[in-house]
């Protein structure tokens, strides 16, 4: 146990050497209401769990050491094997804790259901995300633009992502903003979140899908709403139009070096990709 403590100390000692930077990328540096609620829940649960695990961590070394063979002071009762008070102590409090946590769990599961819209006064942004090999396509159906591997959103507005996959099952995670949900071919799932302050947040696919998996990252760029509007307009005018070649390129199994933007995205592109997967295997799977 000593050793364990020592190795933990090593870790703590190493942390200043840059370890803390990692933490900034995660939920503990939440940048939106969903992640914030998740982080609050996390800390609540963790505190309760300290009280659950604590007794074991304390009792095991103390009892083992106190009742060591060499200690002739300690009582030795080799036939003692039961006591109702102890029995009740080990069944009832944990059960009570689980009941308590269960209530928290039930409520939080409903409150943080990814399908649940974020209650903010501003209007929601709708984005359609398509998981591809090995990139993400984000369609902004209202603005008729699309991006690959970059997801600009207006800070302070709720974002509602509808997901599908143009290939295998994948999972979209933005740790600082929201948890993940799977994207599956032929199906639509949903993820709601909001960024409460401008910034750049790392997003990724967490479900292994082949060689390019580790590079399938993207940035969620939360812009001040006015900047966002400007960006949208700029894209509508300057970005490359989404044509047949662009559509075909989506399904090539490749990573892309830098984000790509498209304008003139046709209506119903997302629906087309959802339906595409229901075609016979030979056409859909390549």
């Amino acid at each position: 146990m000593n050793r364990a403590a020592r190795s933990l100390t090593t870790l703590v000692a190493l942390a200043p050497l840059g370890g803390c930077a990692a933490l900034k990328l995660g939920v503990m540096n939440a940048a939106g209401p969903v992640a914030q609620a998740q982080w609050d829940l996390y800390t609540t649960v963790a505190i309760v769990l300290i009280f659950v695990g604590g007794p074991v961590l304390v009792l095991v070394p103390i009892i083992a050491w106190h009742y060591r063979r060499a200690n002739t002071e300690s009582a030795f009762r080799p036939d003692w094997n039961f006591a109702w008070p102890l029995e009740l102590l080990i069944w009832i409090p944990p059960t009570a804790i689980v009941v308590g946590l269960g209530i928290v769990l039930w409520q939080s599961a409903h409150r943080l259901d990814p399908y649940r819209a974020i209650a903010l006064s501003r209007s929601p942004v709708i984005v359609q995300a398509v998981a591809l090999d090995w990139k993400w396509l984000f369609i902004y159906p209202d603005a008729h633009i699309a991006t690959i591997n970059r997801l600009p959103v207006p800070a302070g507005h709720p974002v509602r992502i509808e997901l599908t996959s143009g290939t295998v099952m994948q999972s979209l995670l933005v740790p600082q903003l929201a948890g993940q949900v799977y994207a599956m071919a032929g199906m639509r799932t949903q993820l709601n979140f909001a960024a409460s302050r401008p910034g750049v947040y790392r997003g990724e696919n967490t479900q292994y899908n082949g060689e390019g998996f580790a590079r399938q990252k993207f940035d969620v760029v939360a812009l001040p709403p006015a900047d966002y509007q400007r960006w949208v307009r700029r894209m509508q005018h300057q970005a490359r139009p989404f044509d047949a070649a662009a559509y075909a390129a989506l399904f090539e199994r490749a990573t892309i070096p830098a984000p790509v933007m498209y304008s003139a995205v046709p209506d119903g592109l997302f629906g087309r990709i959802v339906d595409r997967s229901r075609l016979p295997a030979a056409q859909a799977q390549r």
Partner: protein
Amino acid sequence: MTGAALLGRLGWQSLAFVRAWQDPSLNTLIAAGAAALVVIGAVAVVALITLRGQWRRLWREWFTSLDHKKIGIMYVALSFVMLARALAEAVLMRLQQATAINAPGVVDAEHFAQLFSTHGTIMIFFMAMPFLTGLINYVLPLQIGARDVSFPLLNAISLWLTAAAAGLMMASLVVGRFSTGGWSGYPPFTETGFSPGVGPDYWIWAVTLGSIGSTLTGLNFATTIYKKRCTGMTVMRMPLFVWTSLCTSILMIFSMPALTVATALLALDRYLGFHFFTNALGGNMMNYANLFWLFGHPEVYVLILPAFGIYSEVVSTFSTKELYGYASLAIATIAIAVLSFTVWVHHFFTMGQSANINAVFGIATMAIGVPTGVKIYNWIWTMFRGEVRFTVPLLYALAFMMTFVLGGLTGIILAFPPLDYLVHNTLFLVAHFHNMLIPGLLYGLLAGYHYWFPKAFGFRLDERWGRVSFACWVVGFYLAFMPLYVLGAAGMARRSSEVLEPAFRPWLLVAGAGALVLAAALAALFVQLWVSVRHRRANVVPAGDPWDGRALEWSVSAPPPEYNFAVLPHVAGRDPFHDAKRKGTAYAEPVRYAPIEMPRNSAVGPILGALGGWAAFALVWQIWWLAAATVIGMIATVIARSFVRDVERTIPAETVARIERDWHETLARSAPTTRDFETTAINRGLAQVLA
């Protein structure tokens, strides 16, 4: 195209060596090196056996044996071999992640994917399962006072099917490539459309063979426990290890079919173009996740329960005290087993089902914490008012209790759907399950290995090297896996062959160092074995009871005679041997010895294993003639065996008498040891009993 008919998809390109020759890179060279290791290892073993002229003896005394003790040992030996490979892969993975931070690293992405797929598959199916099956095999009949398991031949068949499956895993290193779909093999990624090669097929058939073996094993153990307990051993007098073995067997019986269905349907998709899990034409990949975890969750309790049983035995023995709260331990075990069928959805909280469903399964998951905690507290109360001896097995038990709790608590965090959304598929999850599997399962198996080794081989393992190894396991574990919690919470996805985030580097370096310490731990374990074998004369315990044991397995010689008990025991309490020693009735010699019937050796096990392995290989490479021939061969073997009537062999009373008298003479010659000297050469396996 006669070549295709004859050899299916097999070609020169399939060989790892050829690939390395044509395209020599670090990556292909590592692959070829691994393949070479397998080939050289196999050749060396064969050569060694041949040179020493041991084939006949091996075949007669081991391969065809139906003795549960030998089968148990062979299982553990198998797990050893597989473990060495899986550990090497683990270290390679950790090195890759520590070096591939905005850099190419050691292996390429595809190779890395094979590494985690084979590592996970091997650790679960071909390290953990054979190891615990081996231990149960060895100990169970001894503990319930039986001469063998219910179906000895079936037992051998299970072993050889498992071995064949493990062989297939090894073959995949040399011929072809393994799956890149992880140990869970999720389609549609593993469908032909996305993984056209042989990889997923290797995975499918290895796992299927293994799971058939495990189902049969579960059936065998459950029947044994139900029907073969000795007189007086009521259900509430069974040693706790027997209880956990029973629950594990029940879990195997009912959960393995789910895996078989999942892999079989995937095979139908891949081979015959069915549409169970495809994207197109009405396939439903979500059902695969559902089926796989219907198996997968109970499976993790299959793994942990026997370890719990081992801890119960070890804590009680080395606290010199009766187990506290037997009934509640038994009830907790049953509760865990039953509850484990009600929580599988927690592995895919993120698939998109409603909050109601997630909440119900989340709460059910947390509920398992209660009986688990009860067990831990029972062990603590067992040490309470005892006399605790810090031998290696007990050290493992202590480290287990302190570390497992942490993993259990992170499990509770994962059970909260909103928190799982954040850390699912990240290194947080990887840290959770290694935190359960290493301090829980592995320490348990190691504790059991140290505890029962003297029983099986007649000499103790070296204590000093045991402690070194233990220290490395603990330090290595914390170093290798605690950083992963941080990385996971920071969003680092599991199964990443490359890292684009320099901020992760310090943690990855620590984890990499930890993996090296773990490798040292394993090395220390091998050194310990070597040292112990060399010094075995000093450490022999022929009397059979080196630890002042409590259950029946300690009441016979070490190693035990083939028939286990010359006279089947009668028991009247929970710790029968412990009580007998106190009452002075232990080691009583019967008035006379009777002849004993034991099953005759049979070649059916190895034959079915070999045919099964070749059938699987043929299916992987689509060599249809071979597949058909081997399957027909298997059916024919079974039918032929049903015509064999001469399946029993009688050990004459005189032989029994001679063996038993020898042992009693040894007993008479041995000086009783007090517990203070149990880890020294004085210990000859006879415990001094203070009435």
